[in-house]
């Protein structure tokens, strides 16, 4: 089908007559039109695997989404434990490593006289954990730095929409969502006598699980 540029187009009787070439052009567009009009449209989100007779490759974004690759860095989340509290121990590693300095943490400590004092396997927890998503450069260093696997970027969400700039400053209720994660090395699992710490439960934000 490659067009031979050295060929003199005026020497072909079809092109001199003009009409047959026009009809051939029309045949191409008509073929596309009919295939797309009557063809089966495959809405498979991965376009390359579409099998339908229709030639449309559009993914209609808000309704259909292309699945992200496994390593995709989306919006942050604070990983909860099974009891719904964040795994974060307020060690400031992520805030320290963050090149954009968009993480702000205030640490709290469980009261020694607390009822759960006997089972103090975790001493610190974040009373405030704020990520300014407008400042974040989505480098993922906080995820790498975290020793407790408490912050992840696996939500596959991007471009969150808010009405105000303050809305992009995500706090614990907004950040704490997604499936809980536990490791065998978690201290409340290692000690026989230890229970889960009973600090104030922070209710998950309403967005949890809506993805």
């Amino acid at each position: 089908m490659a067009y031979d540029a050295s060929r003199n187009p005026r020497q072909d009787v079809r092109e001199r007559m003009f009409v047959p070439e026009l009809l051939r052009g029309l045949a191409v567009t008509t073929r596309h039109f009919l295939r797309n009009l009557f063809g089966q449209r495959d809405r498979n989100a991965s376009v390359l695997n579409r099998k339908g007779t229709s030639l449309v490759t559009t993914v209609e974004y808000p309704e259909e989404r292309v699945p992200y690759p496994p390593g995709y860095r989306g919006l942050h989340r604070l990983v909860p434990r099974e009891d719904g509290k964040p795994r974060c121990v307020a060690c400031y590693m992520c805030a320290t490593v963050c090149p954009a300095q968009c993480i702000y943490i205030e640490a709290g400590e469980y009261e020694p006289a607390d009822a759960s004092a006997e089972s103090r396997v975790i001493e610190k927890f974040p009373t405030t954990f704020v990520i300014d998503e407008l400042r974040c450069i989505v480098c993922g260093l906080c995820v790498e730095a975290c020793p407790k696997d408490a912050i992840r970027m696996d939500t596959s969400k991007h471009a969150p929409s808010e009405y105000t700039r303050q809305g992009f400053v995500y706090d614990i209720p907004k950040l704490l969502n997604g499936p809980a994660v536990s490791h065998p090395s978690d201290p409340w699992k290692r000690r026989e006598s230890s229970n889960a710490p009973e600090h104030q439960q922070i209710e998950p934000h309403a967005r949890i699980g809506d993805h």
Partner: protein
Amino acid sequence: MVAIVAAIAVLMGVTYYLAALFPGPAHVPQIIVLMLVFVMVTATLLTIAERKWSAMIQDRVGPNRARIGLPLLRDRSFGGVPHVAADALKMLFKEDFVPRRANSFLFNLAPILAFGPVFALFAIVPVGPSVQLMDRQVSMVIANPDFGLLYLLAIASLAVYGTSLAGWSSNNKLALLGGVRASSQMISYEVALGLSVVGIMIAFTTVQAPAIVDSQAHYLWQLSRNFDFGLPAWGIFLQPTGFLLFFAAAFAETKRTPFDLPEGDSEIIGYFVEYSGMKFGMFMISEFVEVVVLSAVTTLIFFGGYHLPFGEQWLARQPPIAAYPWMLGIILSTVFWIKVIILCWFQLAIRWTFPRFRYDQIQVLGWKMLLPIGLLNIFVTGALVLWDPSLRALALVGLLEIAVVAALTARRRPEEGAPGDRSLEAAAQHSSAHPLPGATRT
């Protein structure tokens, strides 16, 4: 699809009924229903159809975001049809801007002048046969002047006044350029348009639209006695060259894409560059009305009007239709609109297939190709009709022309047929012997 055809049929029935209820020389029901309902609605739907069909041609989805905000309808796009309402509302509520130094009288007059003549063209198009209904003879044509197609040519050239006045009065150099281009293009193609239908006038020996339609009802060769099947004397078979010339010239009159030099989106924005709101909307809708009217006129002249290609007399003999002839009228009118819609699609397909002409190419096509071919066509047609008044010789020549074009279209190029482009390899091997292999090969 079936619903659309049924809707057309029902509406045509309503038209016949109304026309029987309100008889009179003014043909008010025909004007209202045929022009305002059919032409206007078809043109309005064509605005969205153009966007949707072009999307299908280009493997896109097309507009589907406008929704009707009612509970059950909210999640359905209805093929993008709500976009029509959205566009209309947008145009109605936009600011009606008039440039400061513009001639405001002419500026306001131009959209009307562009809109009116196009509409008036439809007056001579017979949409259906005239039938007996409620003791009255009901005709489905708004006017039947003696000068028939000449009215068409006369009014069609009036539409350019709106275009060139719009370009001149809006005090904008680019708009003026567009207007001048429009008028020169119109002048070039008026000649070819006029010459292209002369062949039909010779063949059917009439210029009246209903007479032309009736001439196309009979068969040149009929194969069977009982069921009328054969080659109908349609203009496309008698005058394929004339059809080509007419379609090209009339397409140039609609100022749509292969001939959209007056608009010229990319270099001059067009004669309506200063228009906004509903005045621009009138220019735009008049373009689509032109498409519908051109389809109707082409159907009338070249595609047998409202007649079926076969089986019409057989259909008329069937018991319920023979008893109530208005049923045949409704069927035939529906056939007419189906033909019109198909031709509208054809025009849109042309518009989304072919690239634009350069300005000099437009003039070359008009004066050096269409005009001589049109003249030649007239002489050949006249000679053939003189030689054989039964039009069979003319049809044979026409079929021969169609066959030649079809054969040339269907035949694959030799270099395309070779898998792996063997001809190119051969050309590369011989390139030392022949400096220009392509020139020697053909």
